[in-house]
């Protein structure tokens, strides 16, 4: 799958691979021994955040789960 930043797709794939392995093997099993993907995530973020700024995508300052606040509990 492509990244919104054309130059970031390879970095994204490296990160995704690391994350998917960690998620299934460690996170879901309750293993809290730490995240092996921090470095690859950092590199990927450096690239994609730059692309987001360049393309003026209005993600900045959008509150996490923002619109969910005014919805009734499921």
């Amino acid at each position, binding site marked *: *799958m492509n990244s*919104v930043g054309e130059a970031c797709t390879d970095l*994204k794939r490296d990160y995704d691979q690391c994350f998917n392995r960690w998620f299934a093997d460690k*996170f879901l099993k309750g293993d809290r021994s730490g995240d092996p993907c921090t470095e690859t995530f950092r590199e990927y973020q450096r690239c994609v955040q730059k692309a987001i700024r360049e393309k003026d*995508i209005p993600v900045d300052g959008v509150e*996490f789960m923002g619109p*969910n606040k005014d919805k009734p509990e*499921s």
Partner: protein
Amino acid sequence: MVKYFSNNIDIRSTWDHVVSAFWQRYPNPYSTHVLTEDVVYREVTADHRLLSRRLLMKTNRLPRWAEYLFPGGMSRSVYIIEDSIVDPVNRSLTTYTWNLNHTTLMSVEERCIFRDSVEQPATTQLKREAWISSNVYGFSRPIQEFGLARFKSNQVKAMKGLEYALSNLQGETPQRLLRDSVKGASEKAKETAKSLASAAAVPQKPRQYV
């Protein structure tokens, strides 16, 4: 005025598989309208929940009658945010998805909650809700109707995409992992979309509106 929609689906896979597949569902044969996908934020909280934000870019294909409402033209891409919380202790995945742009035309917000099925083993229950609204003066009702019909048909694609990702995960050829009740819903959605298209009285060949 907001259109509200909700339904429940059973997915014949364990919650662990469903949540893992959730991250791996793009690309899939049913998601050609999704152009890019990026994780733009991620954090493991002190109580061991995973918070994530994904940014998606999708094509925006509208029926011609809706395009006429914006004579200046509009960008072909829709940016969508998907925020999610994975709670591996309570075994729930909650996602909240909404579009960042084109919100005057239509705002679609969707909340999904994935949990272990209470009634059936090795099954995950998905509760899905959507809120659809439009702020185009004089046209909000037909736009909302269109939005709801498209949402329902997109939902079928989304489930097929998840099913596809689940099959890949489990190393099997794609098989029917969804209960048949979903098939009934997809037939209904096609009918609704067709009748709306003809009600809009635009003489064109039936197209799939993504």
